């Protein structure tokens, strides 16, 4: 085309690119959505389960700690039994007098007792004796217990026997306990070996009194001495005397520690150390808040950590407590691990599936592209010979004398069919070009009506062949800028449609007009036929590529289904619109209205573009 023409090329980008980007996005969503859902559910489930496990664990831990407590209670009960026996022996041995000498001998032999006191029924202190010199220990004891012994009423209110709930004692601990009991009995029996024991009668006595001992008031008292909690067991003997045994608190702790398992380390005590112990630590904390003993696994180190569970111990160890520390919950870890593995597997599966789908999809896209390219190339290959055919037909028409009507007619048919074919090819090429690089428009100066007349002239013979008459009323005679090729192509398509589908309509009306100012001049062209028309439902689909109206309409009619779509794309590229107008009620036919922006003057300074040469482009 001419170089002095001012041109610009608005482009409508083809939708293909966005489709290409949309597909992976869609696939990603397909993968991500179930994953997210599953993650959410999984995490919720896991958290719930964690709570349940934590609850169960805390129950378990509480049970365990309570079983330890009841073990301690059992220890106190054993001590109680022993003290009751020993008190009986003391009483019988001294005929109720509790001579200082025999009480001292008893203290000297009993490893668990630190000191003994005896109050008479009237509340007077009988031991440590108030009328005899005392040894240092007794003096200290009297000093310490002055307040305690001042009100003997304390020793009239029995406290319930310390007995742990037997059901709570776990098997592990009870087995340990049994061993401890045995060893305790062993040491008992050793200390009472007849050879060394000054009182051979103790055993015999204890056995006999065990059965017949009437239930006398007795109880445990815990009181704060200077060094900490002190435990005292008291009971009233048959004469109303109160006999009190103050425990050696260091020895008591030592015994309690021996009731508790030692830590693993060498794996010797594997029966005692269960799996739960491996990951946790239990601490025995005394009334001053100090750790008296701890056992368990090695995982816990920090002191700042909060205990998972604490259980206060029962009387007479009140204000002591057991604290359970755990590093973390092993069960839950495996749960999370399972969830993560599941999610990873699912993600991998879905990704693979998505990738396969994507590959399949892009292969199809490629194949479709190849097919389009093929059609494109074929069309291109057809174009050149067809141009020649048309050229030579025209040349022959001019050369041929007028008196050969048959030949003239035949040539006319050849010419019009070749024209139709070339329009078809033009459509295909334009379509594929539009898909590839968008629609471009080249503005040229001209008169709209002139171009319409050309097209009408070109179509007249064709339409006449179908018994259609074109009625053209042109009112767009202003000089303006527009793309004549685009206009021609749009009109070609519209008129081809009339030829194909509206043959019984007799007329095809074309009217044109222009509106607006010089730089915003718009040209309108209306093409109306009187054929069967288009239903409202179809009116939008009509412009979609490859859509061809209803079956009865298209039956026996050839067509590619790209014409109207292309026409609309061209109109839009031309800053215009192609619409199907609703037809008036009692008429039939399709009314297409084409609107084009056809400015009378055009902005200059646009870079000149080399005229579009399709052969080069392809």
């Amino acid at each position, binding site marked *: 085309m001419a170089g002095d023409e001012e041109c610009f090329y608005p482009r409508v980008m083809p939708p293909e690119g966005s489709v290409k980007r949309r597909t992976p996005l869609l696939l990603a969503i397909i993968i991500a959505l179930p994953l997210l859902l599953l993650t959410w559910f999984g995490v919720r489930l896991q958290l719930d389960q964690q709570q349940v496990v934590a609850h169960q664990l805390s129950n378990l831990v509480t049970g365990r700690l309570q079983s330890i407590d009841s073990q301690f209670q059992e220890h106190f009960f054993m001590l109680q039994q022993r003290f009751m026996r020993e008190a009986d022996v003391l009483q019988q041995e001294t005929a109720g007098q509790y001579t200082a000498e025999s009480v001292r001998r008893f203290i*000297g*032999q*009993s*490893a*668990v007792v*630190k000191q003994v006191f005896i109050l008479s029924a009237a509340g007077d202190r009988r031991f440590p004796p108030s009328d*005899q*010199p*005392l*040894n*240092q*220990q007794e003096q200290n004891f009297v000093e310490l217990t002055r307040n305690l012994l001042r009100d003997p009423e304390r020793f009239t209110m029995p406290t319930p026997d310390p007995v742990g709930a037997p059901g709570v004692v776990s098997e592990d601990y009870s087995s340990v306990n049994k061993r401890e009991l045995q*060893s305790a009995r*062993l*040491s008992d029996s*050793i*200390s009472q*070996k007849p*050879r*060394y024991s000054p009182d051979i009668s103790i055993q015999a006595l204890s056995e006999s009194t065990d059965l017949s001992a009437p239930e006398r008031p007795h109880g445990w008292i815990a009181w704060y001495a200077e*060094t900490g909690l002190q435990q005292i067991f008291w009971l009233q003997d048959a004469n109303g005397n109160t006999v009190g045994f103050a425990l*050696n*608190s*260091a*020895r008591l*702790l*030592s*015994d309690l*520690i*021996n009731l508790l398992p*030692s*830590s*693993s*380390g*060498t794996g*010797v*005590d594997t029966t005692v150390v269960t799996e739960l112990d491996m990951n946790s630590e239990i601490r025995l904390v005394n009334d001053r808040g*100090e*750790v*008296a*003993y*701890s*056992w*368990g696994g090695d995982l816990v180190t920090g002191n700042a950590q909060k205990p998972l569970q604490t259980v206060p111990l029962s009387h007479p160890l009140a204000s002591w407590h057991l604290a359970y520390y755990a590093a973390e919950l092993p069960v839950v870890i495996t749960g999370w691990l399972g969830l993560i593995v599941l999610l990873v597997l699912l993600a991998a599966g879905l990704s693979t599936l998505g990738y396969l789908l994507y590959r399949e999809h892009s292969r199809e896209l490629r194949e479709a592209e190849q097919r389009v390219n093929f059609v494109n190339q074929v069309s291109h290959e057809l174009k050149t010979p067809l141009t020649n055919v048309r050229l030579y037909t025209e040349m022959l028409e001019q050369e041929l004398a007028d008196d050969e009507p048959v030949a003239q007619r035949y040539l006319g048919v050849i010419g019009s069919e070749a024209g139709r074919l070339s329009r078809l090819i033009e459509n295909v090429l334009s379509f594929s070009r539009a898909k590839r690089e968008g629609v471009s428009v080249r503005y040229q100066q001209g008169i709209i009506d002139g171009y319409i007349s050309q097209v009408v002239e070109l179509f007249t013979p064709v339409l006449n062949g179908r018994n259609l008459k074109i009625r053209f009323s042109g009112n767009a005679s202003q000089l303006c800028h527009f793309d004549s090729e685009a206009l021609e192509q749009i009109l070609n398509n519209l008129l081809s449609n009339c030829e194909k589908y509206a043959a019984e309509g007799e007329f095809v009306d074309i009217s044109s007009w222009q509106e607006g100012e010089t730089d915003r001049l718009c040209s309108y062209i209306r093409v109306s036929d009187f054929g069967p028309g288009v239903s409202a439902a179809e009116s939008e689909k009509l412009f979609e590529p490859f859509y061809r109206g209803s079956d009865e309409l298209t039956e026996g009619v050839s067509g590619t289904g790209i014409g109207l779509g292309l026409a609309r794309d061209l109109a839009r590229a031309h800053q215009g619109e192609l619409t199907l107008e609703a037809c008036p009620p009692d008429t039939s036919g399709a009314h297409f209205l084409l609107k084009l922006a056809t400015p009378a003057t055009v902005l200059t300074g646009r870079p000149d573009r080399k005229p579009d040469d399709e052969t080069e482009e392809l």
Partner: protein
Amino acid sequence: MNTQSDKHMLRRTIRTFGFVLLSLLPVLAQANQVNLNINLATPVMEAERSHRAFIKVSLEGFKQQDKQARIPANVAIVLDKSGSMRGEKIQYAREAAIMAIQRLDERDVVSVVSYDSRVQVVVPATQVRDQRAIYNAIRDVRADGNTALFAGVSKGANELRKFLSRNKVNRVILLSDGLANVGPQSASELGELGASLAKEGISVTTIGLGVGYNEDLMTRLAGFSDGNHAFVENAEDLASVFQYEFGDVLSVVAQGVNIEINCRNGVKPVRLLGRESEIIGNRVTTRLNQLYSEQEKFVILEVEVPEQQAEVELELVTVNVQYDNLFTQHQEQLSGQSIARFSRSQQEVRAARDDKALEAAVEQVANEYSRDAIEARDTGDLERAKKILQDSASYLGSQAESLNSPRLQEQEAEALQDADALESEQSWNKQRKELKARQYKRATQQAY
């Protein structure tokens, strides 16, 4: 004829043998008995004035007849494996324990307990048959963590209780190089535990390693249960200390020794030097957990004697001793008394003086001074502490001169050295441990 004279000869020989055997009998019997000696340092006292007198009550374990016939031991070795033991200390401790156990055989029961913040029973109480397994278990002990000393001793004692018997030497051997920081940690609490264990016939020997341990706690624990105590500065010396200790353990001949001293005729007990004792009125009682073969253990009783006329003989105290003889497996009793004579003659008084007993008494008194000095130093009263030791030195010096005793002279020098050492701030920690250990050894006549 011949046959008759032969018969005569035979009879005579048999009779001679019989006599010999008969005369040996009391000796043999004697050989298996503990020797009780009561020595009054001043058997003759000046008349017409009151006196402070020292009475030495000593017991000597009889000789073990036969090395093979020793008393079976029931030993729990309690090893500190806290973080501070890391490195060669724990290595030496392990080897020392293993070497010591090598002296035991299948009559004996051994257990090994280790403790850091927790307690592990490394070897539960077991008869020493498969020594290799025991050694391997000991070699697995690695140092780490804190010091749960109380629990360690408790578990050690508990292992002993599985085979506890009065016919065995029941002993916990505790090795520690640090302060107890898990569980009870005061000297008094550990002392209480020791006293309780002693009532069961268990004694605790404490070995302090390095300069980081609490010597008060360790000596109290040992003192209340009548075990030994040693201060080992270098871990290399652990092996020899363990050897000594096991030597002691394997030479025990008597256990559960109760000494009861009753003062008569207006004599008042003042104090019993060296050991924990109970004084009620005129009655003084103390207790030794065991007597070792051929080792003399003694206590010094200081009494106040009222003034007497000249030429009066006065019974000051009567002594009763009860003990379990591990060989005869019987409880045996010994008794004796101490009688003083009063005279106006200074010469007589001096001539009768029992130098040995007095020397022992002076030693114990000086030992008490030394204890007081530590106490004073602990309260920060450096001057007083120093003065006490100087007093002690001059006391030792004057006594050494009058008794002509090189031993006391040595101790005088020692006391002066100690007085100097008090001032040094940086070496006091070590000095204190040495002093404590020395005092303990003197007071209990520990063999090593």
